[in-house]
């Protein structure tokens, strides 16, 4: 007998939660406890009085598992609202990455040229290195990082994505 893998699809969930001690552990731990995947997770408080945070989670699973994930999140007391952006329709996803590249000569010039094409900004420079700041969808960042890998990539830091519904309504 072998362990079977299930087909999984990617979903972006956003949660508004009480900004109190342990909320993140409660949510992240629930994913672990029930065997769900977290591809990325971002959290920051978003209300004027610092009482509410928004969490964006990118997860993978079969449709019925995604439905369970949403229900299990909603079951947690500090969770106010869960929106599945992937299901809800048009939405935007953005991520920020810092990309450090080291090199000289043609490679350095080529890195700068590509950064310009990808609208990455230089936020630190030495005679032998750059740190680029790039924002965009995960695909764009993946592609940019892949290009930099050939030109002297040293390290990458990524925030994980945040997302909102398009249009005038709240997510």
């Amino acid at each position: 007998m072998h362990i079977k893998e299930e087909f999984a699809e990617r979903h972006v969930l956003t949660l508004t939660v009480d900004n109190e001690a342990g909320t993140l552990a409660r949510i992240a731990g629930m994913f672990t406890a029930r065997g769900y995947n977290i591809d990325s997770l971002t959290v920051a408080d978003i209300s004027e009085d610092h009482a509410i945070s928004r969490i964006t989670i990118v997860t993978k699973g079969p449709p019925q598992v995604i439905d369970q994930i949403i229900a299990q999140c909603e079951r947690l007391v500090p969770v106010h609202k869960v929106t599945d952006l992937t299901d809800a329709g048009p939405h935007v996803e953005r991520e920020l990455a810092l990309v450090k590249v080291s090199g000289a000569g043609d490679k350095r010039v080529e890195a700068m040229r590509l950064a310009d094409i990808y609208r990455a900004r230089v936020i630190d420079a030495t005679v032998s290195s750059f740190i680029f700041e790039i924002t965009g969808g995960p695909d764009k960042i993946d592609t940019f990082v892949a290009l930099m890998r050939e030109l002297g990539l040293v390290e990458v830091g990524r925030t994980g994505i945040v997302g909102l519904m398009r249009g005038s309504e709240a997510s």
Partner: protein
Amino acid sequence: MAEKSGADILIEALLAQGVDTVFGYPGGAVLPIYDALFQHPKIRHVLVRHEAGAAHAAEGYARSTGKPGVVLVTSGPGATNAVTGIADAFMDSIPMICLTGQVATNLIGSDAFQEADTIGITRHCTKHNYLVKDPSELGAVVAEAFHIATQGRPGPVVIDIPKNVQVATAEFDRHGVNAAKRYAPAGEADFAAITQAVELLAKAKAPILYTGGGIINSGPDASAALRELAALSGAPVTSTLMGLGSFPASDQQWLGMLGMHGTYEANMAMNQCDVMLCLGARFDDRVTGRLDAFSPGSTKIHIDIDRSSINKTVRVDLPIVADVGKAIRQMITIWNSRKLQPQNLDEWWARIKGWRSVGSLNYPASQSEIMPQYAIERLYELTKDKAPIITTEVGQHQMWAAQHFHFDAPNKWLTSGGLGTMGYGLPAAIGAQMGNPDALVIDIAGEASIQMNIQEMGTASQYRLPVKVFILNNEWMGMVRQWQQLTYESRYSNSYSDSLPDFVALAEAYGWKGIRCDDPAKLDDAIAEMLAYDGPVMFDCRVSKEANCFPMIPSGAAHTEMILHSDEVSGTMDDEAKALV
């Protein structure tokens, strides 16, 4: 306003919630609370012998009274010992408040004496938990904790209180507590959806009501409403282990329990029905058997207060998130206002009669030894007039009790269903007896399970609780042995109950009465002797050693593939089946 200590605020907040009984065990990190409880005129503290006993006793108290059970234990080992009972309450949706002491806030994280990360450990086996860092928060936390534990799908809530927070002072006015409003569970069902449910039920030619513990959690009126709906619709009723008693076992429409050790008629009717109305049950793996073969032709309606129970394992056609008692009342109202009549169900009942005639609960009779099923039957016959509260441990005896003891009312059957905790029954019986001083409370036990919390005999002695422990002693961890016989060619690895204590002598050592019986002809008299004694009794009922619990749906099998008798037992299983629980 005068300030009060955290410990005094806690006691006042508990009183404001109507708490009169606490199950606990003292220790360093809860000494201020114990001092506040000293000779308290309104709160009775029940001193257990192990914190697991406190948690299970609180469960028994809660399940039998409908009120939340309250536990008080110290930090570190006190809290970790209670975790099994907390997890048990979480799985079986039992309202519980567990107050745990914690080391002082300035010591948290320093590996202090008797420090454990109670919040971290209990995060995923509680409905919610709190670490209270200031006594001024205690009033609101306790109020919200009781609200969360008792409303919606009930469950355990842990409040972890550092020792310095118990000593420090703050202002407190019990009438000035603002209970938080962030937790608002479902109430009535959506009208359109519940109307559709009524229409489906009224049009069904082979309906079944599949009921669960949610009916009992919803309160006594849910059980009353279920009886009315069953009468209106004429549909047969089955129940999960947790729901026994919500529908009277003496009713003609009762099919018995369903699932792995359920009756043939209940499982066949589930498989063959055209409309399944699931009321406060959760399609547990012990109920469904093999999922892809579960009731393939039926339209499934699921009413549950917990949205996450819906479509978790079985996809349903009509999901309704609501309090099941209110939803059934709505169904009755709609049914009556439209003057609906059920379809002619004669053919359906004729098929059920055929399945009933199989006699799936029959067992081989014996003159020479006590069959365990016979022992339960006699216990039932000799106690049913007293409407006893029955608790169980976990294993064969639990299933035999579910099959052969019959319940006509809710809150009389206390068992560890979801977590399956051996050692549940005796402390649960103690909790039930505390909450129902005049009731006959019997723990139907096995000789292996009873040893898991046997220290609680001392608690029953101390509080003069006349609980009866009825041990089906077959000298085996019977369910383990049965599975080894079925799955591992009778290689009985570590399932023999060796070096058993003399239960009668043990009973006497604790100041209990001990009774032993191994003769079916003397069983009735021995049970009568147990019932006549006004204190706690341990009954060592020596039963047939290798009886198996049937009928049985083997793991990985469908409802239609029940093993009815021991001669159908095979000696092994394939790996896919072995991998299932």
